[in-house]
């Protein structure tokens, strides 16, 4: 960087990101001015994408590294606050950014299971795991499992679970980035997937964890601004107070009035209309325990300088995540109120065909997706809508009940629905893209690191020098990314379900062995491995059996269902099984060696530096 700086990068973080925020604000203002001057919309949207990807690539290139500890754990020099921001970006995926408010819009109260489930898990991370894993000083999660449970068999089972959950998750992220790129750039989904992939790779390939950390901080800033701005805008327009999280109580009351006028049966604030109470609480449980087991999140806490910072950093992470999650219900409420007002104000509560807003047609006519459906048809032209609705007996217009919006379009389309200018629309697109990219980067790194560090270095070739290890890691990164992109092109399922499966798989396979490894000295090698395998297999069995049945084809009638539990909560079986199997097997096998007991004792004391001295 051309700036004159004393000390190294980490001493100047405040200055560097201060300049970055200023530059970003100036760029947004420039876009607003250009939009005023009549520059075409398409140009503005492309500029947002190009400028943000360029800055991530710049940071990625600036932080390239050939040092092993920088590549795997960012040199353990990331201060708590910045690690919190990076974790926030790592955590908030395309699903949170694009899908969450949409889910709340459609499900109302029941959708809050995601809001609760995706925040409360951090308490488990802070109390049960992060400080101890940091103290241990591993590079990867399987590294810890391998050391605690006697070597390669445990390491291997850990890698299999990690691979299963992270790969499911990354496919969803590549898919989300493809959808966003295809809608904002107007290119084919199939090509957009690869455009997204290129954005992901430039950040992670050159500099590993170090580059990903500093791009994630930059991505967090983009995504949080992009999320908050439209919500603040709507709150100010509606209630004159720019704090949407406070004012949306008014929107909720307004929605209740509209619901009465429009005869909507499913009230926004009334619980348990889509999920049963059992579904609701099981889902919260699985998401929370999954949070505390996902390797790409746990490894973020390996990068802090001390154990004390690791704990504090969990608090900061949740704070930064909270900023988005407590805005999501407001976002949903304002969007819903705006949309309902179109109908409640109209004659006979029907929206006249001549009054159909342009955004419905724009979003409805996107090829390959059913984003807006009216009277059962894809909303492509006014004539088509009118024909379908008249066939249903609506002569003057159509009622609210006949309008269906896809969950995944709510956030991206709200700026245009609420009549915000194009520079806000482009900003929201850039934010969604940042969210999907940053999570994909973290996941990709978790998978590639486990394969290169644990499989290649620890199991296949322990004599490999650091240059060779990093080379292997970078090649694997590209291979895994390409594999995810090819799977994403088949459009396997909706984003939110795929993400929820990843949580259940991680919870079932990893939570028990990680927690018991620290908190119960008596856990034996065989007990840990057996518990991990049992939890993972039970959940995978239920997940595949429930979604596809055992002929691996959906909807053929051989699907299984235990107590009516949904596939997104399948971790509810695996987590207790893992704990019980670990306990029983540990009790019938001989107690761990004196050495291992000492090892756990030292793990519990912050003092004394890293336990695992990494060779370079």
């Amino acid at each position, binding site marked *: 960087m051309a700036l004159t700086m004393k000390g190294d990068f980490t001493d100047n973080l405040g200055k560097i990101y201060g300049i970055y925020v200023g530059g970003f604000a100036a760029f947004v203002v420039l876009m607003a001015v250009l939009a005023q001057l009549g520059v075409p919309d398409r140009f503005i949207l492309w500029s947002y994408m190009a400028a943000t990807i360029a800055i991530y690539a710049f940071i990625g290139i600036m932080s390239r590294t050939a040092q092993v500890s920088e590549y795997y754990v960012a040199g353990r020099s990331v201060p708590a606050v910045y690690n919190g921001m990076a974790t926030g970006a790592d955590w908030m995926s395309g699903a949170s950014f694009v899908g969450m408010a949409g889910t709340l819009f459609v499900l109302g109260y029941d959708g809050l299971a995601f809001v609760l489930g995706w925040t409360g898990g951090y308490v488990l991370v802070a109390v049960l795991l992060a400080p101890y894993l940091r103290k241990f000083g591993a590079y990867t999660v399987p590294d810890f499992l391998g050391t605690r449970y006697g070597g390669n068999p445990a390491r291997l089972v850990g890698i299999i679970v990690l691979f299963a959950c992270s790969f499911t998750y990354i496919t969803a992220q590549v898919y989300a980035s493809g959808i966003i790129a295809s809608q904002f750039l107007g290119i084919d989904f199939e090509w957009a997937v690869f455009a997204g992939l290129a954005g992901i790779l430039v950040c992670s390939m050159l500099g590993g964890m170090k580059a990903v950390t500093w791009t994630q901080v930059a991505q967090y800033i983009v995504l949080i601004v992009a999320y908050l701005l439209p919500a603040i805008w709507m709150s100010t327009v509606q209630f004159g107070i720019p704090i949407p999280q406070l004012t949306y*109580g008014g929107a909720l009351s307004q929605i209740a009035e509209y619901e009465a006028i429009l005869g909507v049966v499913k009230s926004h604030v009334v619980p348990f209309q889509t999920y049963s109470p059992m579904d609701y609480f099981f889902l919260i449980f699985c998401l929370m325990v999954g949070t505390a087991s996902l390797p790409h999140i746990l490894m973020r806490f390996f990068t802090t300088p001390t154990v004390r910072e690791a704990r504090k950093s969990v608090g900061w992470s949740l704070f930064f995540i909270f900023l988005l999650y407590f805005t999501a219900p407001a976002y949903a409420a304002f969007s819903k109120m705006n949309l309902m007002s179109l109908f409640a104000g109209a004659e006979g509560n029907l929206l006249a065909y001549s009054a159909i807003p342009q955004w419905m047609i724009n979003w409805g006519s996107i090829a390959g997706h059913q984003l807006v459906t009216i009277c059962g048809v894809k909303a492509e032209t006014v004539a088509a809508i009118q024909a379908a609705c008249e066939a249903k007996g609506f002569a003057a217009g159509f009622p609210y009940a006949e309008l269906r919006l896809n969950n995944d379009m709510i956030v991206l389309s709200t700026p245009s629905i609420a009549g915000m200018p194009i520079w806000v629309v482009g900003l929201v697109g850039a934010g969604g893209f940042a969210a999907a990219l940053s999570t994909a980067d973290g996941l990709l790194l978790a998978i590639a690191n486990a394969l290169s560090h644990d499989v290649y270095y620890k199991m296949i070739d322990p004599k490999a020098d650091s240059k060779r290890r990093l080379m292997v890691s970078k090649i694997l990164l590209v291979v895994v990314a390409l594999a995810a992109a090819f799977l994403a092109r088949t459009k396997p399922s909706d984003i939110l379900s795929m993400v929820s499966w990843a949580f259940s798989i991680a919870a079932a396979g990893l939570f028990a062995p990680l927690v018991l490894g620290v908190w119960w000295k008596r856990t034996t090698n065989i007990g840990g491995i057996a518990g991990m395998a049992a939890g993972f297999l039970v959940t995978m069995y239920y997940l595949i059996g429930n979604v596809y049945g055992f002929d691996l084809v959906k909807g053929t009638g051989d699907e299984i269902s235990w107590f009516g539990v949904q596939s997104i909560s399948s971790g509810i079986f695996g987590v207790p099984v893992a704990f019980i199997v670990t306990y029983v097997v540990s009790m019938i096998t001989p107690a761990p060696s004196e050495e291992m007991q000492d090892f756990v004792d030292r793990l519990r004391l*912050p003092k*004394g530096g890293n336990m695992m001295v990494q060779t370079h």
Partner: protein
Amino acid sequence: MSDKLPREVAEAHWGKTRNLMIVTLTIWAIFSFFIHMFVTALNNVVILGFPLGFYMAAQGSLIIFVVLIFWFSHRQNAIDEEFGVAED
């Protein structure tokens, strides 16, 4: 480890750590699950347009979680310092 802690000190430290864990996770469980079981009753209380049951799931519990983690790390740090096992 050069300066190994006497067994009693290590055990006392771990005892306090475990108690803090139990207290923290109890509060966590109350705000993750327990209070949301009464959502229908809480929804009858409306403040600034927010039905209370909805508010707790959308915002209230989240605020508690954030504060809880900072409180926990402060308390744990105090315990570590009390037994002289904090980092320098």
